[in-house]
């Protein structure tokens, strides 16, 4: 843990995995505050999570943030290749239409078969016959996008470039991007299909910069569901913000009208980090040390000295560098974020080590008041740093939802000056 800090060989740093701690505190504050959701439809009903059905694409906020977390992820970051604003806007409209269809379980364009024999079909076809599987598609705009199309004065102040945190070992081929699309679904094929078809529509206008597949959600926005475990075997996200907690969502996640700029009202900010875990060394760590590092027990997930997972943690009972203690809002002036991360495994690296970890996704109202101070704290002190390393990083402004069938992704940003 701390003795490794500043060394070259066992870098790492992190923050993620366990923001279970952050969630814990939050939950306590807002318990019982469940209110009707801002989004239309009943897709917020946890019962709907079991149906494999469609999640409403339209709403005040984009789906895929406060809506129930699905099991699978395909996240893609794109670079803009065109300098033609009209062409880019047309692509956003085409993407919106494709997203509208795919989230409803329909094929893109004219479909995957039955068209001209001499031409490739509009839809790639691998999602035919599959349920909508609660597919959500969520678009975001990276800081670098605002250098293009004369958008500099529209860049939100809250959309800062992330500072370099101690221990970061960022791979530029897994970092940054002018825009992103987060595809979450209960069926990995449905999520992959969605990104693949958007990429295809985008060729010539945008190009994929990097992408990440994820499985096994590591946090939940539906507290009644069983708390998922991360690849270190610990429960994570015990008290993440629930999709029904309107007040906390408003306070910590959704950008308000007073925050500015206007086009972001109803949106949010996303931080995406690829956090590699040193799986093999972690697995050789004694149980007591593992539990000390997290600050909770491995079986039940209870905080140190407590019996049940949902018991209020007593931070001072934990080691000073315990992850939960450091990540807890009480240790961070109340900082709260909404997590939506996934485990990932991309096979093994050339040395036979599992290339695995946590693909961290956090939504917040202001990155400067959310991820950055939290990560500074964790990067400096977290005992977990010995076992993790941040290898990819990106930040995006997530615009508000697509209101209706005439609306499109990014309209509030791009139609203003049109």
């Amino acid at each position, binding site marked *: 843990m701390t003795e490794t800090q500043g060394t070259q060989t066992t870098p790492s740093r992190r923050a993620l995995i366990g923001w279970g701690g952050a969630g814990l505190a939050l939950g306590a504050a807002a318990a019982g505050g469940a209110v009707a959701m801002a989004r239309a439809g009943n897709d917020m009903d946890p019962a709907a999570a079991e149906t494999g059905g469609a999640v409403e694409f339209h709403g005040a906020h984009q789906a895929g943030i406060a809506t129930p977390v699905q099991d699978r992820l395909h996240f893609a970051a794109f*670079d803009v*290749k065109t300098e033609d604003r009209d062409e880019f806007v047309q692509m956003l409209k085409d993407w919106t239409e494709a997203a509208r269809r795919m989230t409803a379980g329909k094929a893109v364009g004219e479909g995957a078969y039955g068209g*001209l*024999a*001499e*031409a*490739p079909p509009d839809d790639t076809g691998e999602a035919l016959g599959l349920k909508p599987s609660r597919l959500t598609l969520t678009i975001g705009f990276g800081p670098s996008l605002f250098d293009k199309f004369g958008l500099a004065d529209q860049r939100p102040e809250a959309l800062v470039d992330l500072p370099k945190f101690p221990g970061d070992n960022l791979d530029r*081929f897994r970092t940054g991007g002018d825009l992103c699309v987060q595809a979450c679904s209960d069926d990995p094929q449905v999520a992959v299909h969605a990104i693949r078809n958007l990429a*295809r529509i985008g*060729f*010539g206008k945008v*190009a994929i910069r990097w992408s990440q597949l994820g499985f096994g959600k590591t946090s939940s926005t539906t507290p009644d569901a069983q708390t998922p475990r991360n690849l270190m075997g610990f429960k994570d996200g015990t008290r993440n913000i629930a999709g029904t907690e309107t007040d906390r969502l408003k306070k910590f996640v959704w950008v308000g009208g007073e925050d500015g700029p206007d086009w972001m009202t109803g949106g949010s900010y996303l931080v995406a980090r690829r956090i590699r875990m040193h799986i093999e060394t972690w697995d050789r760590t004694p149980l007591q040390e593992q539990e000390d590092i997290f600050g909770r027990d491995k079986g039940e997930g209870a905080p140190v000295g407590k019996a049940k997972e949902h018991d209020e943690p007593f931070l001072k009972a934990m080691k000073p560098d315990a992850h939960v203690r450091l990540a807890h809002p009480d240790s961070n002036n109340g900082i709260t974020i909404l997590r939506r991360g996934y485990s990932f495994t991309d096979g093994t690296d050339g040395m036979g080590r599992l290339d695995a970890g946590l693909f961290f996704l956090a939504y917040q109202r202001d990155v400067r008041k959310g991820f950055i101070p939290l990560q500074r704290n964790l990067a400096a002190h977290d005992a977990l740093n010995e076992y993790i390393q941040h290898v990819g990083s990106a930040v995006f402004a997530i615009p508000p939802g697509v209101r209706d069938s005439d609306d499109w992704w990014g309209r509030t940003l791009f139609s203003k000056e049109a």
Partner: protein
Amino acid sequence: MRAVRLTVTAAATAAALTALSACTAKSDAKDGDAIQVTAADSTCKTSSTSVPAGQVTLKIENKGSKATEVEILFPDDRIVSEKENIGPGTRYTLTAEVKAGSYEIACRPGMKGHGVRQKLTVTGGGSTAKRDPQLDTAVAQYRTYAQDQADETLPKAEAFVKAVKDGDLDAAKKAYGLSRLGWERTEPVAESFGDIDPKVDVREDGLDAGQKWTGWHRLEKALWHDKKIGAEEKALADQLLKDLKDWQGRVGKAEITPTSMANGAKELLDEVATGKVTGEEDRYAHTDLVDFKGNVEGAQKAYELLRPVAAKNDPALTKELDKQFAALDTLLDKYRSDKATYDFVSYDKVTEDQRKELSDAVNALAEPLSKLAAAVVK
């Protein structure tokens, strides 16, 4: 490179033909109007060399010892109608809708090769299937282009072969990339002869078990990797020239259709995307950008010939294709000092970021190019 291409071309061709020919549908022609075709192993006799336009009937009898195939061909070798696998001693009636013009009837004993041919003149009048003369022109011009590329390649290949046989390593290296250019420009046509491609353009990892490695890439490895020319290399150089002459002699007879041209253009970009952008193609010589440029030029030629028809049917598509071809050309020009030469940067000097940029530009062009065939046959 891959024999798979052949299938692709054939499928595209078959699809195009359904629109143009009536095949064996109904035959209300009387026996007296039918052309008797007597096929044998080395002859192909026809009872008539002139018929009126409209429905034409061939009464075929195979008197030979092997299965044969009988085709009615357009002057550019496109198939109007055909029947494959007519067994020895069997008969078959083939009908086709044919408009006025010059045709050939071909019998292909063993279903291979150019076949034995007879002229067939179809005289005016009668109802005919519609054909777009612009597309006929495009096919004819592309056929000429393919032949020209082969003709122009031979002297360059000869220079390469001479350098190898002289044991002149430097001269051979210099001549290598240019000797491939014409082939790369017309690769889908060259590949339609399934037997030539595996001899001249196969890479080591593409060899079948027991297949002897011959051709350009075998010599490339000798020149750049082994850095020596021995007796075996000299013999292989001779073999390469012989195989390329075979190509030159047959390329004019390749089956070419508007859709095979369009999809061939896309296939050229596929070649770039899978082999050149990755640096796999010329892994020893690193002359990938020369091949890359050749593939793009060949695709551009096919596109330009089809463009008038495509622009009528789908102007948005041709606008996009014009733009993306220009963008890729501009990008490629950054890798050579002078637009008049094919002196490109060695691909091992092209950075990862630059390769990604090239790959993005190829995708940006190949995606709309995959829609060209539909725009042509619409």
